[in-house]
């Protein structure tokens, strides 16, 4: 096993075909030690296939992989691991019931004695120096359940280092991190680079690529469509390569005229911050962005308004009418809808078909005397499929088989098939490709033009600044400030978000 030291990795004309689909088409690229390579591309561009080949999970149909001057037809998982290639995945595989050392050394635990009991002392002695090197503010015997998302991400990186990785592949490592947490991660990536470790950084967040990458490779439809050297990296150049056209949605400003108060929230107290209360108004036709760090209580706040998270206190008025009950069913009946952050676990029932998901919140509209009319259900869904451009062979397709962007459109379809007065979007474009993002922004615009009051929580600074008419910044369960359009800037938002 080659560990430590330098590594060169080269892909030569790698193709991967599945019946009917060419997932990768003669892709060539190389990564060297001490270099950060950004890989960009819309969903379905071939990034994950490429990473699976690199990790040894699948073999390419043709082409060759050269690691340290050894030529492979395909890598096995053992060869990939043995060459010092490590992955930090988008979805974290953290065992909350174990401590940090247990997580990092999972499957490689250190034993002692004839009974092969766990040697906790030795395990901590192995892990702590790595954590120290990363500047982590937690230690080997901290429980994983007490870590924040960013700290868990750091733990994954520590795991990669503990295997003496020479090349670390990071797949959307910042998708669940806030701006400040992202900055810490980017700093650490810089330090890894200085230590001679190669990093492949896959992200939809182009600013991060600009900040850290030495080179950028863009993939589209399974092909490498462009290389950018450090000096050429800019947002416009990257977007252009990814989509092959210029996008206008990124510079669209609101043209809507704002109406009267549609949503009024008085003295809402959530269980995460029982000592803080929030008052808040959103006007008809207005988009309010909620910025803030993860843990600032943003999601809990909107879920309390919606009635999913039981609020401790407070009143919600829609169009001047008080919500008498605090539950999602009552909120929905009054025209208050929520597009949740976690679309796979809260937004959709993945095993249900598109039409079953779209009809779910309002089955009455497709049923008579308590019995569902399957044809009405299908028609209702087909209309949304057309409106929202949901790409799928039919509305009978299970949503689990859709891409992230299309899944999110189905979630939107649930609510657009009804009459929204207030729509809350919690991280509506997380992990979604650039094309679908633009479509989702367009839908939000159209809704606001129809007079819907919109709240959008987002950790993507640029998104908040582009889309919002006003920005409310939350900090520790409170609204620490509200910015008007003329005051929008990343600095102003950050100042309010941190202490």
């Amino acid at each position: 096993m080659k560990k430590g030291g330098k590594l060169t990795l080269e892909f030569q004309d790698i193709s991967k075909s599945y019946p009917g689909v060419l997932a990768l088409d003669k892709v060539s690229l190389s990564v060297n030690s001490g270099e950060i390579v950004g890989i960009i591309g819309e969903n379905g561009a071939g990034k994950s296939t490429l990473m699976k080949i690199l990790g040894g999970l699948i073999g390419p149909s043709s082409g060759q992989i050269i690691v340290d001057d050894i030529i492979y037809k395909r890598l096995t998982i053992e060869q990939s691991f043995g060459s010092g290639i490590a992955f930090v995945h988008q979805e974290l595989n953290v065992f909350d019931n174990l401590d940090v050392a247990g997580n990092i050394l999972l499957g490689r635990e250190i034993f002692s004695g004839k009974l092969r009991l766990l040697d906790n002392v030795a395990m901590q002695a192995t892990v702590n120096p790595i954590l120290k090197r990363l500047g982590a503010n937690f230690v080997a015997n901290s429980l994983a359940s007490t870590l924040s998302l960013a700290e868990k991400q750091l733990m994954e990186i520590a795991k990669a280092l503990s295997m003496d990785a020479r090349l670390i592949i990071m797949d959307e490592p910042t998708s669940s991190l806030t701006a400040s947490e992202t900055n810490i991660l980017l700093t650490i990536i810089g330090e890894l680079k200085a230590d001679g470790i190669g990093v492949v950084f896959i992200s939809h967040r182009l600013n991060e690529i600009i900040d850290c990458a030495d080179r950028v490779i863009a993939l589209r439809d399974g092909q490498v469509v462009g290389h950018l050297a450090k000096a050429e990296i800019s947002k416009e150049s990257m977007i252009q390569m990814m989509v092959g056209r210029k996008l206008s949605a990124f510079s669209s400003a609101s043209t809507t005229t704002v109406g009267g108060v549609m949503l009024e929230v008085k003295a809402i107290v959530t269980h995460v911050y029982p000592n803080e209360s929030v008052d808040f108004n959103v006007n008809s036709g207005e988009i309010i962005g909620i910025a803030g760090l993860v843990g600032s209580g943003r999601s809990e706040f909107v879920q309390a308004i919606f009635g999913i998270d039981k609020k401790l206190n407070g009143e919600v008025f829609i169009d001047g009418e008080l919500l008498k009950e605090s539950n999602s069913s009552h909120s929905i009946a009054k025209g208050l809808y929520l597009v949740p952050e976690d679309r796979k676990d809260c937004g959709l029932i993945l095993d249900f078909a598109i039409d079953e998901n779209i009809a779910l919140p309002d089955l009455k509209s497709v049923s008579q005397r308590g019995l569902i009319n399957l044809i009405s259900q299908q028609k209702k869904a087909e209309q949304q499929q057309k409106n929202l451009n949901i790409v799928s062979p039919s509305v009978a397709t299970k949503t689990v088989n859709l891409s992230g962007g299309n899944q999110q459109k189905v979630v939107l379809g649930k609510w657009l098939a009804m009459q929204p007065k207030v729509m809350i979007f919690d991280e509506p474009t997380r992990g979604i490709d650039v094309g679908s993002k633009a479509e989702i922004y367009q839908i939000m615009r159209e809704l606001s033009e129809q007079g819907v009051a919109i709240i959008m929580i987002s950790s993507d600074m640029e998104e908040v600044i582009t889309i919002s008419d006003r920005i409310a910044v939350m900090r520790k369960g409170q609204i620490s400030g509200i910015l008007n359009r003329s005051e929008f800037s990343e600095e102003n938002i950050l100042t309010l978000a941190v202490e």
Partner: protein
Amino acid sequence: MNKKDIGLLVLILVVAGIVALINPRFLSLINLSNTANLIGLFGLFSIAEAFVIVTAGIELSVGSVIALLGVIFIDLIAVLGVPWPIAMGIVIVIGAFLGRINGFLVTKMGLQPFVVTLCGLLVYRGVARFYTNDATAGFTFGQSFPTLEWFIAGRSFGLPHSFIAFLLVAIIAWVVLHRSVYGRHLLAVGKNEKAAEFSGIKSDRIIIGAYIICGTLTAISAIYFAMYTRSISPSSHGSFYELYGIAACVLGGFSLRGGEGSIIGVVLGVILLQMLQNLVNLLGIPSSLNFAVMGTVILAGVLADQQFARYRERQQIANK
């Protein structure tokens, strides 16, 4: 019918064909009629069980409830002289109420269904034995209820009434689970309770409803069993019936993780289980092997289903 149902139907036909070839008595009118009666009796509570399993729950107290409600029913009509339609009403209301309690404990108190109904299994069995002082409850000599006996244990068009009742219940259950708004909510809550709540479904109500349906159907089943056996020894009557019910559901494609399954599947599952029992008798297999045969067939069925599912998945991936 989905692919699983068709697979199960084919299995039933194959087993029936083999048994009929080896022992033609399988197809005799008397044997078919007896088997149909048993299918009806066991089918009623299997459908009851299905409604709880689809919520990702489990109901272990079915057998004990059948014993308890059985002795209550016989006591009401044979000892207390309550008119039988009223006695039936009382028993069904008690069944629904017991289901309501289970539903309350599972949703509002947040207890695990396994634990709640395991306690039910012990408690109701104990209460049934105490109720009769551990004596067998039955009718005294010469006592008879001709209308009730015809209604519950009689035959029309050669079909046992228990079987007809089972078919009616199955049809209604099919409509409820697969075509009604309530059924859709039930599948949604069973599959992903959190997502269902985000869609405005009051999951607690839906789940409590499932336990009430289960309790009600179990009570109906208890009446049929009471009139079928005509005497109930409270320490053994209905023992292990919950396991028959669960087995029928699992064979019928219900996942214990909830949100999956078809009523047609349960019906076929019940038919297969009763055929297996019948087969043990007809083929001269020692009756002590009864459970062993059942267990083996269920395991083989579930295993085959799993392998088919994997095969289909691989085909799908290969086609991508």
